[in-house]
């Protein structure tokens, strides 16, 4: 299964035979007090730094979320999408729980975006999937319903199946345009939760055959040395079938672990990407050395 996202100038393919799709998570005000204050003043300048750092770090797509309290999220998301597209060609993931904000983001977007997200809640489905269809976008589907976020991998599979069924049959969205998020939970809250995520990824990717993504940094919430945990978790999830993640793209340790896993999984022919990254690092070190001398 190939999910293709695009901007007006570039595209990316997500799939099990492709290098893992790194979606940068940083453009999100949650937990960023200063950024929240700036957004309340309509100041989007921090986004430019976020874009540069994530692209530099290896992001292949960027998630854009403007979910701060006490802001006009729809207006901000539309403006943020336009701003980000003016400085980078990578395709975007338009992220909000506010339907009007998703619509504003989609309206501003040039290309085929990934919408984050729809859940197996009827009310949300009827609001969000028509938008996805109208804009010809792809969508992230979360396997939770009105009752709960299920822990049981089988239950997550069932909900994902139903949601994919509704999206394809009732709304005519191609199955390739649905990316299921099997849900990453904090390992600090319960040390068995990562294995449940692995099981859910495996079940969903083999039984439904769709591409998958995770809000990967969730796994290390509340723990020390989050980078190492993230750097181990994502390659493990890749081996379970994960094909993309909304993740920390600014930390070399994590991105490098993903690139190494690409090679090990046979998705980096003759190690060309791995070797090229090594050369680039060498060249950068030499340039830095020369500048010092």
């Amino acid at each position, binding site marked *: 299964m190939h999910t293709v996202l695009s901007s007006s100038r570039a595209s990316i393919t997500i799939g099990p035979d492709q290098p893992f799709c790194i979606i940068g998570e940083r453009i999100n005000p*949650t*937990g960023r*007090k200063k950024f*929240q204050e700036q957004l309340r003043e309509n100041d989007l300048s921090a986004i430019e730094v976020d874009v540069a750092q994530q692209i530099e770090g290896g992001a292949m797509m960027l998630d854009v979320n403007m*979910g*701060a*309290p*006490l802001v006009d*999220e729809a207006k901000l998301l539309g403006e943020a999408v336009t701003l980000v597209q003016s400085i980078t060609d990578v395709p975007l993931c338009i992220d*909000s*729980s*506010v339907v009007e904000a998703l619509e504003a983001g989609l309206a501003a977007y040039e290309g085929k975006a990934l919408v984050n997200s729809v859940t197996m809640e009827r009310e949300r489905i009827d609001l969000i999937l028509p938008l996805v269809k109208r804009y010809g976008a792809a969508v992230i589907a979360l396997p*939770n*319903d*009105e*009752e*709960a*976020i299920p822990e049981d991998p089988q239950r997550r599979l069932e909900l994902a199946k139903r949601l994919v069924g509704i999206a394809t049959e009732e709304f005519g969205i191609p199955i390739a345009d649905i990316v299921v998020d099997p849900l990453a*939970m*904090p390992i*600090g*809250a319960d*040390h068995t939760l990562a294995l449940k995520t692995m099981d859910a990824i495996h079940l969903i990717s083999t039984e439904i055959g769709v591409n998958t993504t995770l809000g990967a940094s969730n796994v290390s*919430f*509340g*723990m*020390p040395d989050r980078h190492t945990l993230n750097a181990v978790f994502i390659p493990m999830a890749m081996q379970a079938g994960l094909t993309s993640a909304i993740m920390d793209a600014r930390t070399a340790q994590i991105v490098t672990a993903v690139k190494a896993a690409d090679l090990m999984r046979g998705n980096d022919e003759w190690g060309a990407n791995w070797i090229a990254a090594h050369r680039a690092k060498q060249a950068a070190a030499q340039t830095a050395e020369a500048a010092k001398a």
Partner: protein
Amino acid sequence: MNTEEILKGLYDETMVGNKPAVLELTQAGLDAGIAPETMLFEALIPSLEEVGARFERGDWFVPEMLIAGKAMAGALDLLRPLLAQTGVESVGTFVMGTVKGDVHDIGKNLVNIMLEGAGFTVIDLGVQVPPEKFIAAIEEHQPDIVGMSAFLTTTMPMFKANINALEKAGLRDKVVVMVGGAPVTQEYADVCGADGYAADAATAVRKAKEFVAARRAG
């Protein structure tokens, strides 16, 4: 073991989350005739307070806080009936729920465990809690504090809706309202008319205790 050793053991073993040892020591304390409130207020609660302080400083982490809270809750199961008999005033009663439209509960459950560990009686209403359910629970349990959790910018406005419903039911002055959840901020808590906000479980417990102390003093 003498009283001092038992109290010190309770303090130390609670801090490292050794639930079996805490239970054993609690029983040993009862057998030795130590008053339940002595164990609660001189060993268990101070131990959990230290855990919370270490967490707030960033020295301790979520799993350590969780197992300490669970160890403490185990001891409380033994002590609670006895404390009730002796008429010891409970630390406080806390009604908790994730607001309507929202099914996220990991953070809320973490706060519940820490509140119980701190000696609060917690009534957990679960997820997707509509205003009328909060009101019914407040009328039934007459808590000191009602806690509302929201994980989405779309469900945060339910804080205000719930607070309006409390006002309409004539209950707003009878209960402290605390709010929390990933996207929630102090500013948002102020704007929606809540009394308190906490960014994490340890801070939530500390603030809850401050609110109860202020209520009882006032």
